[in-house]
C-alpha cells in the first residue's frame, strides 16, 4: 500500500504520523511519502504563534469542537513525556478580553482552570469590560514540525521536495491513496470556492518578562483582526490581522504600524521591547474544515483522495483530531479494497 501525502505543514506531517501509528503493523508493506514544495521552517505552521485555542464559537461544527478537544488532550498527555521540550509543547495561562459580555466559548471545558475575569483584573485592560482566564497549551510549529519529521524519518517515511501539479500525477505514478493536506493552495489541485486565504501578519519581539498570552475580541472587526500578544519559548508574537482574499506574502508597513500601536496600548511594557522581525502567512480559511474522502475517476480506473485542509487559524489547535479522523477514513478505504480483492478472487 503506497500512501502519498501532499503538504508538509502540521496537517500533512501529523496525518502521516496517525496513519503510521494505526496501520504500520496491519499492512505490509506500507509506504508513506510526503510531497511538498515547502518544508519547515517555511510553512504556514512555522509562523503561527502556537497557542492552542479554537475560534470562540463553533457555529454548530461539533465535529471540529471534538477534534480540538482531542488535540488538547493528546498534547496534554505529551507534556509529561521526556520529549515535551523537543516537541515544543508547554503550558501557558492567559486572558481573553471582550469589550462586552459574551457567552462562554466552545473550549471552556477543554482548557484548564477556565474562569471569568474579575473586575480588578479587567481594570488592567482599559476598553475591555469582560473576559476569561484559563491555562492552555502552546505548541510551537518551528519545534514541533522538525520533531515530527524526525519521528517520521526514523520510521522510514520519505520526503520529496516537489510541487505536485495534480492528484492524477501521483495516481499515475502508482499512489494507492492520496491525502491532500495542501492548505491554502489546495485550490491549485482542485478548485474550491469556499477556500480563501486569510492573510495574517505578525511581529516577533524580545519581551521575556511577558508570561501570559492576551487575546482580544471585537465582534465588529472579527476574529484575529483585534490585537493579540502571545509569548513563545523565545520570542513574543504580536498580531493581528485577518484579511480574507489577500494573497500578498509581503510584510506591510501599514499593518505593522497598526498592529504595533494596538498592542502597545494593550500592553504598555511592549514599548521597550526589541522588535526582531515581521512575518506574513496565509491561513487556509474555509467555512468548515474539509475532511472527507473523494473517489476520483481517471479513465477506466479510479483513485482515492482524502482531503484534510481548510483549518483557518486553528491548524495547530485541531491537527491531531483531524489526523486521527483522516486515519479512520484511510481505514475505511482499506476495508473496501480488501472487500474488492475478496470479491474479485471469487470468480
Amino acid at each position, binding site marked *: 500500500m503506497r500512501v502519498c501525502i501532499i503538504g508538509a505543514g502540521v496537517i500533512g506531517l501529523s496525518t502521516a504520523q496517525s496513519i503510521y501509528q494505526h496501520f504500520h503493523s496491519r499492512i505490509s508493506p506500507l509506504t508513506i511519502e510526503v510531497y511538498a514544495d515547502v518544508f519547515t521552517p517555511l510553512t504556514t505552521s512555522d509562523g503561527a504563534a502556537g497557542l492552542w485555542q479554537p475560534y470562540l464559537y463553533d457555529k454548530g461544527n461539533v465535529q471540529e469542537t471534538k477534534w480540538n478537544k482531542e488535540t488538547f488532550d493528546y498534547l496534554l498527555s505529551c507534556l509529561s513525556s521526556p520529549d515535551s521540550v523537543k516537541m515544543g509543547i508547554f*503550558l501557558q495561562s492567559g486572558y481573553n478580553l471582550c469589550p462586552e459580555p459574551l457567552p462562554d466559548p466552545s473550549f471552556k471545558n477543554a482548557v*484548564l*482552570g477556565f474562569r471569568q475575569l474579575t473586575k480588578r*483584573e479587567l481594570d488592567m485592560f482599559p476598553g475591555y469590560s469582560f473576559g476569561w482566564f484559563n491555562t492552555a497549551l502552546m505548541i510551537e510549529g518551528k519545534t514541533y514540525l522538525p520533531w515530527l519529521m524526525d519521528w517520521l524519518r526514523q520510521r522510514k517515511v520519505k520526503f520529496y521536495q516537489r510541487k505536485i501539479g495534480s492528484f492524477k500525477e501521483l495516481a499515475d505514478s502508482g499512489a494507492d491513496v492520496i491525502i491532500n493536506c495542501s492548505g491554502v493552495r489546495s485550490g491549485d489541485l482542485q478548485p474550491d470556492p469556499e477556500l480563501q486565504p486569510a492573510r495574517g501578519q505578525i511581529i516577533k519581539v524580545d519581551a521575556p*518578562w511577558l*508570561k*501570559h498570552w492576551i487575546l482580544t475580541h471585537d465582534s465588529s472587526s472579527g476574529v484575529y483582526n483585534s490585537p493579540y500578544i502571545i509569548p513563545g519559548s523565545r520570542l513574543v508574537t504580536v498580531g493581528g490581522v485577518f484579511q480574507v482574499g489577500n494573497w500578498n506574502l509581503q510584510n506591510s508597513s501599514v499593518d505593522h504600524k497598526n498592529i504595533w500601536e494596538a498592542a502597545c496600548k494593550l500592553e*504598555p*511594557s511592549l*514599548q521597550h521591547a526589541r522588535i526582531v522581525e515581521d512575518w506574513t502567512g496565509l491561513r487556509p480559511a474555509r467555512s468548515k474544515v474539509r475532511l472527507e474522502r473523494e473517489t476520483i475517476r481517471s479513465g477506466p480506473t479510479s483513485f482515492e483522495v482524502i482531503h484534510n485542509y481548510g483549518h483557518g487559524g486553528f491548524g495547530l489547535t485541531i491537527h491531531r483530531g483531524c489526523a486521527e479522523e483522516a486515519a479512520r477514513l484511510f481505514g475505511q478505504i482499506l476495508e473496501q479494497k480488501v472487500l474488492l480483492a475478496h470479491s474479485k478472487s471469487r470468480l
Partner: protein
Amino acid sequence: MKRVKVLVVGAGVVGLSTAVCVAETLPYCSVTVIAEKFSPDTTGDGAAGILLPKEFPDIPLERQKRWFKESFDHLLAIADSPQASDAGVYLSSGYQIFKDIPSDKKPFWSDFVFGFRYMTDREMKRFPNHKFGQAFTTIKCECLNYLPWLEKRFRAVGGQIIHEKDEEVYPIRGQILKVSAPWLKNFIRDGDGNTYIYPGIRYVSIGGTRQAEDWRLEVDKEDSEGILERCCRLEPSLRGAQVMCEWVGLRPGRANPRVEHEYLHLQGRQVPLVHNYGHGGCGVTLSWGTALDALDLLRQSLFEKPPQARL
C-alpha cells in the same frame, strides 16, 4: 521648617523602598542610604521575587494585610506601565500545591492576588503526590532590575548614597539554581516552602533550602542535587534544562519583621530610630507596605515629643 537628616541603613529591597518613600513624600527630609552591599550583591538580588506572604504570629492581621496590599498595588501600577521591563516587574501565574490539605485553605492574602481559586481535579493530575492546590496570579519583582530602578528614583529626588558596613540578623540560608527553561511560564510552589519553580525574565529560579543559623555563602552540592530532584519531579521538562549557575542567600530571619521606632540617646540629643528589618523570605513581598509603615513611624517621631533623657 528646618531640614531633617534621615539616614537609612541598608540598600536591599526594604532599605531602598523605605528611602524612596521618605525622600518622595517628605520634602523637608534629606535622605542618605548607607550600606555595605548594593545590587547585585544584596539578598534580594538572588531572590525570585514572587509576591507571596506568610502569616507572622505576633503582628495583627490587619497590619499584615495592609503591608501586602500596599506592596502589591504599588508593584501592579509599575507592571501595568511602560516602566515594567526597566523595573523588572510583571505578572506571574501559577500554582501552590500541598501534599496534605492545609488547615488554612484560603490564606489572608487570597483577596489581594488575582483570581485566587482552588485547583481543579484535572490540574491536580499533574501532581500525583499532592492532594490540594491553589491557583492565582501574583506579581514577580526581580531585584536585579528593581533595585537599580529604585536607586534612580531615589537619586532623582536628591537622595544620597554612602558605602559602609551595616547591621546583621540571624540567617536562614537559601540556595537556588538558575536554569535555562524559557518554555516555562507558570510558577509551581510546594506549600511547604522548600520546593519551588519560578520562571523569570531570563532564567527560571528553582529551589530551595531553609537552613536556620547557617551562615555558609558557599554552594552546597548536595543541596543542588536535592533541589533538582524535587523540582524535576514536579516539572519533568526541567530534566533537559541547562543549569546556568547556583546562588546562596541569607534571609534576614526573625519571628516577625521589626517595624517600630525608638529613640537613641546620641551626643546629648534624642535621635529617632525607625526599624524596618527581619522580613525573612518576604522582603520583596512586603517591601513597599513596610516602607510606607516606616515612613509613618518616621513622621510620628519627628512630630511627637521624645521621652526625657535619663540623667
